[in-house]
């Protein structure tokens, strides 16, 4: 079985599933309305493509057992390095700052204060009950993504010194950065809880499930991070393009505004943004006390796995060439 066979299998599977899934997706998840064919095509295509990708990955695992086992062995050999790198990121981050780790909690709090002040003056009534909590929950998820991908993007170029002299699996670098960002999210979550309690919000048991959307986000960020770190080695332009792109994605994510204020056209568009689904998932659990539907789980996991698959593939196919470009 070669690459071509796997690609062919993936294509055929996608086509079959596309037909099977046609018009079965629920409207509230995909955001399409009767007659909005492009959205229907996108989501049906997306779901069938990701699930066929998963099947192909399973197929690869079964047919190329030794390769997969070898990769796992290398990873377990270098896991200590990953932990040390995460620890190092953490120590370096607040080196020489007086408040140290406290900044991880203070930073989101202060940003939230500024934004709440600005927005409560700009827009009087947006129909959000508890703006600070609404804002902070969106910020928490988005900052996780933005920090994870931004630091992963430069991880290979930044680790050039090591990569040139010692053999280390290259994916260790972006992955450790993404996990560092996760550690930071833990602290931001403390800030979120603080505001949550201070503003008198009531707890619901669904809050215990918050690790789920964070985990989806972790996978998604890892995929995007691996893709960016791989391409950034060959084209340093990526970091500039990504900066702009990230701003666009930020405004396409309902962090500071409710979805209800959007005009129809943008309302559709926003459903194409993976971040929208992750943030909504998080808010459903934390703010509304509602359990997200099976389909929103499938969409979130789909985006996460698709990103992870693409990122990992690009990474593995390019990583032997890095050294010549660093």
């Amino acid at each position: 079985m070669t690459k071509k066979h796997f690609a062919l299998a993936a294509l055929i599977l996608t086509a079959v599933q596309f037909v099977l899934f046609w018009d079965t997706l629920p409207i509230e998840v995909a955001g399409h309305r009767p007659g909005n064919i492009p959205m229907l095509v996108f989501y049906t295509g997306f779901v069938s493509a990701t699930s066929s990708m998963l099947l192909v990955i399973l197929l690869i695992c079964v047919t190329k057992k030794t390769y997969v086992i070898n990769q796992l062995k290398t990873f377990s050999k270098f896991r200590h390095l990953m932990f040390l790198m995460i620890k190092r990121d953490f120590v370096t981050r607040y080196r020489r700052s007086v408040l140290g780790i406290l900044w991880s909690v203070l930073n989101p709090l202060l940003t939230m204060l500024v934004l709440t002040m600005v927005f409560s003056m700009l827009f009087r009534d947006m129909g959000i009950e508890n703006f600070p909590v609404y804002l902070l929950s969106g910020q928490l998820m988005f900052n996780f993504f933005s920090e994870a991908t931004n630091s992963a993007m430069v991880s290979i170029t930044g680790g050039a010194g090591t990569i040139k002299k010692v053999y280390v699996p290259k994916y260790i670098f972006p992955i450790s950065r993404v996990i560092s960002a996760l550690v930071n999210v833990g602290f931001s979550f403390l800030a979120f809880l603080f505001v949550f309690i201070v503003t008198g919000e009531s707890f619901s048991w669904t809050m215990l499930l918050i690790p789920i959307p964070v985990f989806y986000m972790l996978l998604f960020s890892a995929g995007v991070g691996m893709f960016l770190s791989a391409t950034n080695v060959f084209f340093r332009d990526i970091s500039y393009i990504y900066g702009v792109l990230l701003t666009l994605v930020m405004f396409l994510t309902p962090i500071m505004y409710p979805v209800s204020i959007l005009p129809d056209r943008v309302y559709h568009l926003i459903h194409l943004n993976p971040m929208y689904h992750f943030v909504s998932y998080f808010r459903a659990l934390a703010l509304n006390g509602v359990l997200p539907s099976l389909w929103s789980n499938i969409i979130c996991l789909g985006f996460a796995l698709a990103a992870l698959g693409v990122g990992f593939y690009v990474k593995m196919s390019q990583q032997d060439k890095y050294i010549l470009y660093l």
Partner: protein
Amino acid sequence: MDKPVISVKDVSMLFNLSRDKTMGIKEYVVKALKRQLFYDEFWALRDINFEVKRGEVVGILGLNGSGKSTLLKLIAGVFKPTKGSIEVNGAISPLLELGAGFDPEFSARENVFMNGAMFGYAPSYMKTLYKDIMDFAELWEFEDVPMKNFSSGMYARLGFAVATQVEPDILIVDEILGVGDHLFTKKCEDRIKKMLEGGTTVLLVSHNIDTIKEMCSRAVLLSKGKVVQVGAVEEICKIYQGDDA
């Protein structure tokens, strides 16, 4: 017959000199359209073949630019060969460059654990070796000093200490023995000899013929990316010195 620890088969390494690392997307597209992308090929190594058996000390000789360091980097896994294959059986400690993998912002102590992890050793294992490493490097005084304040001799000492104390199956040493003073060089040579008794395989690059003669049993002579000859050390040294003259 013992299975070779390192076997290098038909290995060639190509560098693309036009691969300018600052090339942007615009330039890339323009060059791709003009079909100028992959010019200026440089074969650093061509069709290299040799094997190293367990417990051997093999010297690699050659003038500057003959491909010695590239060969070592290939064996250490830092580069992947353009053609051919390299098989290595065992854990490698590569001492490719002075202070490879050390982070200058961090203290000697932190770097010992970091360096160990890069070779794939757990921090708990490094803890058991830590005393021996610091004893060997004689750096107890500077344990918590960031390595950016270290001298090159101190870098080399710590690097050598970590690479040898983890007791690798294969040790790769690239011209760094010359950095320390004669006492330390002597200490390193003794250490390598002791490791040999334990069955460690050593690859040694040095311009110092005396070191090579003293340490190695066999040698590989490289010239312009090709193997001139593989054989007993005296023979190879003779050819090499003949080249010089």
